[in-house]
């Protein structure tokens, strides 16, 4: 297939940045989206131009590194699919494809399609964990956990931290990301002792990092490559409200 690609080029954080058009004539429908970009980059190199910088690593849809907005949608048109797992058969011959970085105040652009998502890590560092020093753990089967609860914890823990939810949200909110971690740990008995502090610290850091508020658009859920449920956000809100009431009493 033949494609026209309009790709965001930005040399550095302070550079203005702009969309640059490229033609690609020999795209196979079996290529992944990133392989198509590899081919384009080889072409650019052959012409003595600098290749397009983009983040990627596992190319299996699990590390959460790949991060681009394809025709206005984070990770592109296929449901529940990361950019690296998206294949060119989802596009038409002759199509124009626009590729931009994830955009959010809390995700500054570093170069081209590469952004800095360090803010996510800082939210986890504030409380997205269970404090269990190595060595002191009781036998793994000492506390049975109902299968249903363990399954909910796993549904939430499946988040790959890619940031598509933030990129899709009109407010650039990180609520789905934070909710996923809070729900994961809240549904486990091991997560109880730090339950309140976790929610408080994670939400506080989320705000401080410049993520926006949630106004229930649920664009996040729609683009999430791991189909993390928007319901988790209500659960996070409930946890947060409880914290508030407990604080009052």
């Amino acid at each position, binding site marked *: 297939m033949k494609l026209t690609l309009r790709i965001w080029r930005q040399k550095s954080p302070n550079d203005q940045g702009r969309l640059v058009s490229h033609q690609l004539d020999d795209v196979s429908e079996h290529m992944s989206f990133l*392989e198509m970009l*590899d081919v384009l980059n080889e072409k650019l190199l052959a012409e003595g131009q600098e290749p397009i*910088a983009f983040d990627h690593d*596992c190319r299996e849809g699990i590390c959460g590194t790949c991060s681009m907005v394809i025709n206005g949608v984070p990770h592109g048109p296929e449901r529940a699919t990361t950019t690296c797992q998206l294949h060119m058969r989802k596009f038409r011959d002759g199509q124009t494809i626009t590729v931009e970085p994830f955009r959010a105040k809390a995700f500054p652009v570093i170069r081209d399609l590469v952004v800095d998502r360090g803010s996510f890590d800082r939210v986890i560092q504030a409380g997205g964990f269970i404090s269990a020093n*190595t*060595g002191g*753990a009781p036998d*793994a089967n000492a506390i049975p956990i109902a*299968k249903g609860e363990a399954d909910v914890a796993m549904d939430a823990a499946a988040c790959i931290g890619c940031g598509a939810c933030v990129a899709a949200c009109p407010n650039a909110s990180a609520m789905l990301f934070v909710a996923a971690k809070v729900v994961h740990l809240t549904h486990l008995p091991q997560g109880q002792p730090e339950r309140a502090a976790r929610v408080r610290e994670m939400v506080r850091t989320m705000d401080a990092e410049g993520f926006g508020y949630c106004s229930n658009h649920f664009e996040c859920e729609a683009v999430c490559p791991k189909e993390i449920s928007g319901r988790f956000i209500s659960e996070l809100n409930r946890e947060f409200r409880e914290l508030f009431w407990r604080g009052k009493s």
Partner: protein
Amino acid sequence: MAVDTHALNAGIPSGPLAEKWDRHRFEMKLVNPANKRKFDVIVVGSGLAGASAAATLAELGYNVDCFCYQDSARRAHSIAAQGGINAAKNYQNDGDSIYRLFYDTVKGGDFRAREANVYRLAQISTQIIDQCVAQGVPFARDYGGLLDNRSFGGAQVSRTFYARGQTGQQLLLGACQALARQVGAGKVKMHERTEMLDVVLVDGRAAGIVTRDMVSGEIRSWSANAVILATGGYGNAFFLSTNAKGCNVTAAFRAWKKGALFANPCFTQIHPTCIPVSGDYQSKLTLMSESLRNDGRIWVPKQPGETRAPGQIPEAERDYYLERRYPSFGNLSPRDIASRAAKEVCDEGRGVGPTGLGVYLDFADAIQRLGRNVIEQRYGNLFQMYERITGEDPYAVPMRIFPAVHYTMGGTWVDYNLMSTIPGLFVLGEANFSDHGANRLGASALMQGLADGYFIIPYTLGNYFASQAPPRVGTDHAEFRGAETAVRERIQKLLSVNGSRSVDTFHRELGLALWTGCGMARNATGLKQALDRIPALRQEFWEDVNVVGGGEELNVTLEKAGRVADFLEFAEVMCLDALTRGESCGGHFREEHQTEDHEAKRDDENFCHVSAWEYTDIDTAPKLHKEPLVFEHAKPSQRSYK
């Protein structure tokens, strides 16, 4: 080639096998709790091994600097592991024990691993599961709320713990959350997008590292009382593998050049069930979980050059070659055996798919027997992934699979304390060579990475500090300055070649040379050809590679070029090791050494040792050291899966 006959000293504790680790823990020296904050540790790598080590060492009170090349610790390659993690819990009451896990691992490794290390690994395995559950890893559970297990990779007992098809992800998130907690507490400083480019020795000890900031390009030194490498495996030497794109040998290779011996570089694992290559743009290979072999039947047409669609080929004209050759293990034969068998049928011209490099993995019988529902429940997400990548519906047409490079058993040589031959340089996880011999069993890499990081290094590092009191040298020391200069010069050299070929074309060509000469089956002629080709390719690289952009910016081409330059040297050591090991064992199959029915033939008389290679200089062959392996408990026998 020089051979050093002085045996390497692995420092294995004396005493009965089951007591060695306990005894050693008692005999090792301890660092006073108040003194731990006086020691600084560098951990390179944030995968299972690195993250668990960094977090645990910080919990103990050491000051840790942790480095990774990704933009977040949580994205390390360990995240991609699917199947599970082994532990000798015997929760299923089906006859598992520490001794059985030990025995299976030694046998699975084709008697090329150290008994004492493997026994310790089996002992520690149970604590790992306890630790992970305490951290909140959501392992699969049964309806009673207890942990579920499955049998994996042909094991006779169900000892594999799993979290859906995302076990690596969940274990890594557990470890990275423990790490995040220490970052929040100020005990670990995390350096993302920072690549280690050299290790620095002062007075023969590891004193620090030199890194490049992958965003600003800044070259910088870091000093510490000890350095830990947990930088993963080198499967990407082959270009195409199931590894993440950034996996590299650079850290281990730099250490090699500074004097750390490298053990068994030719021991690589080829996984039998991956999605075949679809075209010359292919950038990586995707693993399809081994569990598919529980219900799928593997076959190829009997006739070479068959052109009919799979559904049109009658039963009588199909060859279910694994079932035919290995009636008792059939489709569940171990990885190395299943991979080699696939290669053989493809070599005979019976391979399927557009390239002829593929075999069918067929679920038609299973769907008929169990119903589509059951198959969907068991493998739904895998089938989806397959369809996403290939555009074919595996419920209707058989999957096509082919073996792919997956894991590297070889790695930096370490002693029982996980210390390399450079004092103060410790190596953990896939980056070391220690526990899997010539073939790794499924679900054992995760176990080893976490054993190393959570439960071994915290003790052995303390012992190093307490018994040797290594000083902390400032980064203004001449050795650091010299190393920084060398790193800068090399980058400058890469940038100034200004040739006509891209880095990827060299990497692909190297990969093909390795796959052909040092892949699933090896012979002296092919290895010698590879050994001729690789240095020539390396020379072409340094004369004709095209690295655009500058050094002081985010430059993906430059990053790749540095890694490929190292692979181009390292690949030669792999081939040399493969040529020197004149026997077949595990994943290392030398065609000259096979039984009458084409099975691997070990030579215990001449090769019951670890081959550890020492760097001399680029123009002379490395020097071979041998660490003899002694088997007192698991007696070497011919592996048979007939």
